């Protein structure tokens, strides 16, 4: 028997996005095991600094992507930075989506004044440029990993709120929700068990996009010196360090910069592909 399936053909965008993110996650987890030298190995700085990609330094160590201004292996530092970037990206996006799902569910289900207030708040928050707001939040605390995650999470909930609210409002009217109420289920149970699952797919798309944005923002803040602080490697502070050597050793800044761009593109294509698949299913 042949199953009739429409719109389920494999989307190249989804494949690409998943492949990039999976490779990166694997690299970040395995770390030095795949890259050779350790991320913090210094050795003889003068002899090893700014070695070009695919070159061997005096001590015979092969540096796949070359070394930075302290003679540290670039590939190893990129993978160590990937841990930071992926952790910040996923945690901040999950925090933002968590807030968004909560606010969207409350607004969509409660309606009336509660809904109005949340909608006005969401629209107002959407009109505030995100980076200046992040600067403000980061400025008030000591720059570091935690405040970076919290600040990015607190400034990214609006798209999810809108999507979830719209979905909840649409589903709320359906018969099975009324049936659940008639059976005596409390509102909270109805929302969590019967309404929210319908909003899961659009929320997932928004979260995929959110991970890319969060990674881009973390790298941006760290690039400005306001995110993850050296010596902890982050793609952003690696770009900042490489910027000083742009003429002598362009690869030091280019490698992390291209990696950020690749990951952001992967997340955005993944989101595009998932969205198209969702649209096709409807």
């Amino acid at each position, binding site marked *: 028997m042949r199953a009739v399936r429409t719109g389920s053909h494999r989307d190249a965008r989804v494949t690409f996005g998943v492949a990039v993110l999976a490779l990166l996650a694997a690299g970040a987890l395995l770390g030095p095991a795949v890259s050779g030298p350790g991320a913090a190995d210094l050795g003889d700085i003068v002899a090893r600094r700014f070695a070009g990609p695919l070159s061997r330094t005096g001590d015979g160590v092969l540096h796949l992507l070359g070394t930075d201004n302290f003679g540290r292996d670039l590939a190893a530092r990129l993978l160590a930075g990937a841990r930071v970037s992926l952790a910040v990206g996923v945690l901040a996006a999950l925090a933002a989506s968590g807030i968004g799902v909560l606010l969207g569910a409350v607004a969509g289900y409660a309606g009336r004044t509660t809904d109005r207030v949340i909608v006005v708040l969401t629209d107002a928050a959407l009109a*505030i440029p995100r980076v200046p707001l992040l*600067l403000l939040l980061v400025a008030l605390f000591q720059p570091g990993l935690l405040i970076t995650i919290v600040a990015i999470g607190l400034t990214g909930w609006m798209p999810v709120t809108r999507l979830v609210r719209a979905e909840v409002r649409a589903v709320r009217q359906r018969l099975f929700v009324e049936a659940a109420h008639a059976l005596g289920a409390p509102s909270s149970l109805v929302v969590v068990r019967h309404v929210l699952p319908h909003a899961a797919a659009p929320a997932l798309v928004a979260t995929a996009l959110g991970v890319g944005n969060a990674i881009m923002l973390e790298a941006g803040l760290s690039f400005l010196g306001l995110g993850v602080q050296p010596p902890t490697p982050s793609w952003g502070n690696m770009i900042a360090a490489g910027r000083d050597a742009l003429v002598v050793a362009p690869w030091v800044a280019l490698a992390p910069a291209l990696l950020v761009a690749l990951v952001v593109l992967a997340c955005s294509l993944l989101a595009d592909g998932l969205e198209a698949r969702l649209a096709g299913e409807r």
Partner: protein
Amino acid sequence: MATALLRRLLAAGPTVLLVLTVTFAALHLAPGDPVRLYLGPDADQGAAAAMRHQLGLDRPAALQYVEWLGRFAVGDWGESIAQRRPVTAVLADALAPTVTLVGLSLLLTWLAGISIGALQAARARSRLDTTLTGVTSALQAVPSYVLALGLVLVFAYGAALWHWPAWLRLPALGAESIGSGFLSPWQRLADRMRHLVLPVTTLALIGAGGAARYVRASTLEALRQPSVRAARARGLTEFRVLFRHALRNALIPVITLAGLQLPALFSGVVFVETIFGWPGMGRVAVQAVLARDYPVVMAATAAFAVLVVVGNLLADALAALADPRLRTAR
């Protein structure tokens, strides 16, 4: 139309109020004492208490909040700790460079975005269309600081290295050359334009990626309308159908979209101004954060939000001019 705009103006209120509330709350919730920061850790208790009283920091938070809103409304935004001059003066100096940068970027964004999007819609599903979709998706995803550094590498360092003609070697720092005060007015203008090229290109390329994708979708949608079929049936050329009938309808929502993209554009401005040493509000904000100059950071954040609100109002007014249906208030 006036009522519609007035309604929009009232709707903008919550945005500004939210920014002011967040800045106020953040400053009060954050660890650290602004008085200690201002006077230094060694200042004596009496002086600190006197200053706290003078600044009104010993009064209830609710009262301070209302006062903070009032002071903002009348334009008293405090004094910069690092520069020892009014915050409004610091921001006023930075406003014109930022508005120039953003205005030119928007202009180029939509010129390029509309051209590319319309071309793609006219040649939908061709190889050119697919290629351009790839390019615009990539442009939309590339972080501004990455593109900015890439352009610096090519046009500032690469151009010298590969012996490109002089006009292609572009300055990558500041708003004018050192000693440009000695140039003639025309040379000075040319010098300023050259300094604008890289920062404007960075922002415009990223914006054009998103703009083209939107215009393509919007034009394809317009081409499916019955009016377009009617125009074709009347024997109009495909060129005329595209430009007079499809694109015109497709572009009206684009004006509103340009307004909605402003927050993202101002986020990019922060990075681009920092990288190119452009003396605008984004660089002022970053330097103020690094110097822990809280009044400037707070005011800059609020000013960015106000600029977005003003930009959105302008976009609404333009959309109403372009589309008679929008002139009647909903």
